[in-house]
Structure formats: structure tokens, C-alpha cells
């Protein structure tokens, strides 16, 4: 079994999955699982200015196992499709994939409540879907089409949804916004917590430290989440950061290091963070250690600053999906057949949405001048092409 899993991992983890039905060999013949729940141990957290961290022994129900697996598989598949669309030159702009980091978004989302909010950087395709935007809304935004969640006007880095304050393109800029959103949660007394995500590279932007200070000064329900995937573009963390203990870099903000490849760890840590923030203790910092399989963006092959072996090693030993799959099958929370069914369904759903994202039309050029202001004081957009002025128009509903 253990011999087979790694090669299955390899298959599952490649960017262009030839078959989504990964042939995991199992001795079990049961079609559906029999166990209702199982207990798992989590890699120890590292704590900064905290007496006690999240639980290290967690219970997973069969129902949750299936839900989580489906989300993980979905996120991976969305990125496979995004990668292909980019290669087919249907996606313009830049396109950054989340493959390898899925356990963070999925674990967090699983613990989050309806009232909580998220803001992240440009690796946002999966997050957007988890926050409730359907597959067409995500994929058609990547292709710049009408059905995209931002009408195709934002593209791959600028997806938005309910309580999802976007994919953001300027590195680090989203983090102070997170503090502002958290202030709104507190001010409105809605009980919500904001999760502001950023990378290890972004962790060195000055604005982050301004945001930490405001958040602690006013004890905002803000969780700063550093997704440490080892690199900011081509620069490894050792070469970019004086301290790579990102969980401690909030100084006066307590922090936790979390194994970001284990969806149960990220879920548990998020649960802890919600309890912490909603009890009025102020902000918390989570560092989730993870890995990105692809290059920084689709235009980076991702091989000049790290070895292929390094990538393969992670794929084979720490892949967030394969490891979770192995766990839930071994503990009989799910059967290989069940997971295979999910893989097939996920693949089908993404394929169908991809088709729509390709065939859907773009908004017309008249929308170049749409929604620049709430209320346009002038009828026409300025720009010189004197015979064909564009009218300022309002397309989306004003609020």
C-alpha cells in the first residue's frame, strides 16, 4: 500500500491530470464507509506568546471527510483547468495557481462561519469558489467573459464574492484592508472575524506592520494568515526574510505555526482563531507552511530557483490531497470508490464550466467606461477618439 500511494500521489498531483480517477489500490471491498468518525494527531504547532494552542488531537467525521475531500479535489481541478486555459491563450493577464496549497483554503473554510470574511492576494480562484461563487463565475472571470464574477473586468487576480473582499494584485496591499474589514465586524457587532491572507514575500511589506499595529491597538477580530510557500517569486524565504518564523513576526500579536499541508491542522487552527478573536482578545497571526507546485505564475516555469526534485519530493510526501485521501481510506471514513465518484463528478463539473467560460461572450467595449464612478458627473468618458465617444454607464447595481 505505502508503495503504491506515492505513485498515485504523483499521478494525482501532476498539473495535467490525465485521469482524475486515481487508481488507489485498496483491499477494502465495501462501497461505502462503515466508520462514523476517527481521531487524528496533528503535527505540533509552534506558539508565539500563547500559553495554549489549538488541539493536536482532532476528530473527523465521515461526512466531513467526504466534504473536505470534495473541496480539495475541486480546487486542484479548477487550477488544472486554469492552467490549460492559460496555455491555450484564452486567459489574458497573469495567472497564479494555488495547486499544493489547497489544504489552507479548504481547512479554513470548513471552520469558518457564514459571518466571517476573507481577503487574499492573487492566488484566489479556489478561495472564490469556496466562498460561494459558482464554477462558471470563477472560470469565466479568468477568461474575461460576461459570466465572470467581476464581469470579466478584473481577470484572474480580481475575483470577488459575498464576504470575499477579493483577489488583490498589489502584494501586501490587501492586509491593511483586512484590519479595516475586521474593524467593521467589531463596529457592527456582527460577531464576524476577518481573515487576511498574504504570502511569505508579502510579509516583508511595510504596510503589514502598520496593519498589525492598528489591529492590536484596537483589538480587532482580525486573523493574519501568512501562507508560507517557501518562495516569493524566485526568492526563497531564507534570502528574503531576516526571520522566517512568520508566526512570530507580529511581535505583540500572538501567533501559531501550522502545518499548512494538513487540512485538519488548518481547520483546527482556524477554529481556535475564531474562538480567540470572538472572545475579544484581539488579532491573531497564523503561519501556514505550504508549497506551490507550479511556477509563481504561468509565465514562470518555476525551475530556475528550485530543483525539480524538491517539487517532486513535496508532491510525493506531503501532498495535501493524497495525504488526506490516504488517511480517510486507511481509517475507513471513505472508500476508494466513493472518492473515485467524487473525482469523476468534480472533473465533469469543472469541464462543463470550462466550456461555458470559453464560449461565453465578452462584455462590449462600451463597458470600458462603465462603473468607474458611482455617479458620473459627465456623460462621456474622456479620451480622444473624437468621433466615437464612450458614454459613462452604470452596469452593476449601486448600493
Amino acid at each position, binding site marked *: 500500500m505505502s508503495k503504491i500511494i506515492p505513485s498515485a500521489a504523483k499521478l494525482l498531483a501532476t498539473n495535467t491530470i490525465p485521469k482524475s480517477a486515481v487508481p488507489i489500490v485498496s483491499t477494502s471491498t465495501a462501497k461505502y464507509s462503515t466508520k462514523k468518525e476517527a481521531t487524528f494527531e496533528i503535527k505540533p504547532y509552534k506558539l508565539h506568546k500563547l500559553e495554549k494552542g489549538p488541539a493536536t488531537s482532532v476528530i473527523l467525521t465521515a461526512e466531513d471527510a467526504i466534504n473536505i475531500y470534495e473541496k480539495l479535489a475541486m480546487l486542484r481541478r479548477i487550477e488544472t483547468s486554469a492552467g490549460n486555459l492559460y496555455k491555450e491563450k484564452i486567459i*489574458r493577464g497573469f495567472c497564479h495557481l494555488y495547486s499544493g496549497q489547497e489544504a489552507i483554503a479548504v481547512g479554513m473554510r470548513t471552520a469558518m462561519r457564514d459571518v466571517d470574511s476573507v481577503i487574499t492576494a492573487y492566488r484566489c480562484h479556489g478561495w472564490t469558489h469556496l466562498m460561494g461563487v459558482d464554477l462558471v463565475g470563477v472560470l469565466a472571470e479568468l477568461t474575461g467573459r460576461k459570466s465572470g464574477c467581476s464581469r470579466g473586468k478584473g481577470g484572474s*487576480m480580481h475575483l470577488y464574492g459575498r464576504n470575499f473582499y477579493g483577489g488583490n494584485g*498589489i*502584494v501586501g496591499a490587501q492586509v491593511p484592508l483586512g484590519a479595516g474589514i475586521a474593524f467593521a465586524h467589531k463596529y457592527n457587532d456582527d460577531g464576524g472575524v476577518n481573515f487576511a491572507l498574504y504570502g511569505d514575500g508579502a510579509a*516583508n511589506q*511595510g504596510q503589514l506592520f502598520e496593519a498589525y499595529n492598528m489591529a492590536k491597538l484596537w483589538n480587532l477580530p482580525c486573523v493574519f494568515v501568512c501562507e508560507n510557500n517557501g518562495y516569493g517569486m524566485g*526568492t526563497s524565504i531564507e534570502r528574503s526574510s531576516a526571520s522566517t518564523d512568520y508566526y512570530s513576526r507580529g511581535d505583540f500579536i500572538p501567533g501559531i505555526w501550522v502545518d499548512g499541508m494538513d487540512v485538519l491542522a488548518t481547520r483546527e487552527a482556524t477554529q481556535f482563531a475564531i474562538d480567540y478573536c470572538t472572545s475579544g482578545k484581539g488579532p491573531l497571526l497564523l503561519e501556514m507552511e505550504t508549497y506551490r507546485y507550479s511556477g509563481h505564475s504561468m509565465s514562470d516555469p518555476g525551475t530556475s530557483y528550485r530543483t525539480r526534485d524538491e517539487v517532486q519530493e513535496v508532491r510525493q510526501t506531503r501532498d495535501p490531497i493524497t495525504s488526506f485521501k490516504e488517511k480517510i481510506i486507511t481509517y475507513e471514513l471513505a472508500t476508494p470508490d466513493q472518492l473515485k465518484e467524487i473525482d469523476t463528478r468534480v472533473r465533469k463539473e469543472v469541464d462543463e464550466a470550462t466550456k461555458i467560460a470559453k464560449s461565453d461572450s465578452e462584455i462590449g467595449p462600451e463597458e*470600458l467606461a462603465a462603473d468607474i464612478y458611482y455617479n458620473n458627473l459627465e456623460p462621456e468618458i474622456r479620451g480622444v*477618439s473624437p468621433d*466615437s465617444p464612450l458614454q459613462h454607464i452604470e452596469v452593476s447595481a449601486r448600493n
Partner: protein
Amino acid sequence: MSSLVVKRSVLLAKLIKHVNSEAKRLSSHFVYFPDNGKPVEGETTKMNMMQAINNAMDLTLRSDPTAVVFGEDVAFGGVFRCALGLQEKYGKDRVFNTPLCEQGIAGFGIGLATAGATAIAEIQFADYIFPAFDQLVNEAAKARYRSGGQFPCGALTVRTPCGAVGHGGLYHSQSPEAFFAHVPGLKVVVPRGPTAAKGLLLSCIREKDPCIFLEPKILYRSATEDVPVEDYTLPLGKAQVLREGDAATLVAWGTQVHVLLEVAQKAHDELGVSCEVIDLQSILPWDEETVCNSVKKTGRCLIAHEAPLTSGFGAEVAATVQEECFLHLEAPIGRVTGWDAPFPHVFEPFYLPTVSRCYDELRRLLQY
């Protein structure tokens, strides 16, 4: 009024067709016109703009022991590879990566330059220069003035890729030259190709005031010329007349120069008129004399740039031209620019001041 509406919708339909046929990723909206004139005699070698910039930094690092080059991912050349091979050649203490922190990069560069080193900083994309805006506008630009000349940071040069690239979307396409043109104390330069880039960058590096050097990124690989291998500089604040004529003066900088060269050729072929094409090269300070002398001769002036219309640098040129050449003007000064909208994700060909838009405007000026 109703006929106007009809006319508009027909034009819009025409434009949509035009956009759809051009809206393929990576299609470029201009033809490159290589430089024929050589600034210096002697040996030349084929270089694209990336290599010419690399060469300028190489020459600097070789001859100026205080020179250092730094920025995000610069150790392995930077995302556009302009610093390729320089770290191997000159060592990790002279060519190095910075963390991802533009405000810090600019401030660090200012300090370094003030203390006597030649600081060449790269900001990965001009779209990301805004976190550094405060340092450049409030510190770099005013250092000499506010210290009574004691603590200038003239040895600072900030290089950054700008402009449209065919598919860059909102944050990999902007042209921020006008923001910096509003800042006394800075110098702002935009090259149109390899030969100009090398000479102008060497000038910026040696200039005694801080310079912002904006590199139209689409030219890095697409523009190739025979570039002199030896060290040479091109004067800052001087425009170049690339094509002489008497019917109209066409003014641009960066990529847009090539669009206007094509427009001038088209006007020659189709209308039998000759237009003068001027590459401004320096945005701050800009060469009023060359432009105004030309307009006095031609009586017509068209300015084109990728950045939006309102407060774009074309506005400054137009205001000066009307003041200096008022009695010579045969038509109002024309501007063809990006629209007053964020740089769009899906409408790039429509947004840009393409050959057809510039040509239409030129005809309007000629028929005025």
C-alpha cells in the same frame, strides 16, 4: 442629434469589430522602427532592449566601483532578465535581491546614494512603484533642495518596466510618467529602443539628480538594433527628431513613437504629406525648444501617449505649444491617448492610441 447617435453606434460597431479582430493575446499594436543613426562610431552588436540595458549596467559596474544594482529577484536577472549574469560577474555584494518591499527599496536606494554610492534600483513593474511613491516624491526629489545642496541623492536611478504589453491587464500595463513629471527634483526618461535605452540609462546613472527610467516592457525582446558596444551617453532633456516634415508635428515617447512613425509613413503614402516625428525621450525636463520649433514650422501638433488623457503628459506639452506657437497653429492641438479609465483587462486594443486612432486624428488636424 439623432443622426449623431446613429453615427456613434455605427462607429461603435466598427470599433467592436476592430477590437475583436485584434484582441488576441500577445498581438502587438505597433511595428518596430529600428534606429538607423548611431550615437557613436565604432563596433556595434545586435542587442534587444533588455540586452542594451544589461550592457549599460555592465559598463557601469565595471567602471564605477561604487555602483550597486538591486531589486526584487535581481540576483538572477529580475523578471525581465535585464540584470542577467551581472551577479556572477560582479558579486553578491554589488548585485542583489531585495525583499518584496518597494517603499524600502526606494528609501534604501536614496540613503545609499546620499552616502555616495551609485544606486541602481529596479522596481519590478511600474505598476508597483506606488508603494515607493512617497520616498521618491517626498525624499528623493527634495533632498538636494531642503538640505541647501548638502545631501543630494543624485546617484539614484530607479529603473522600472512600464506600458502595455498586449495582455497585461490592470496591474502590468500602466504608464505612470505623468505622476513623476509633476515632481521638481526628479528626472524622468522613457527610451524607445535599445540604442536610446543604453545611452539614456548611462546618462541617468551618471546624472547628478535622481532619475526615474521607465522601460516600455514590450520592447525588451521585440526591439532589436545594432547597438554600439562602447560606452556612450545621450543627453537628458533633449528630444530627437526621427523624421522630418512640414505638414504636422507628431510627438510621443516610448512605444508610442513607433506608432506615430507608422502614422507618418501612412500619411506619406496615402495623403502625400510629410510629418515630423519627435521622440521626447525625456519627460522631465522635456525639450520645449525642439517641439516648439517644429510646430512653428508645421503649424499642427499631435501628441500621443498610452496613459489616460486627463493630466497625462500630453496636456503639459499642449499647453506649452499653444503658448509658444499660438500664431503659428493651423489647427487645435490634438491628443490621442488612453481613455480616462483604469487600464482594462479585456479591452486593451481598444484602450490604446493605435495607428488608426492616431491617423484619424491626424487627418482631422490636416483638414481643420
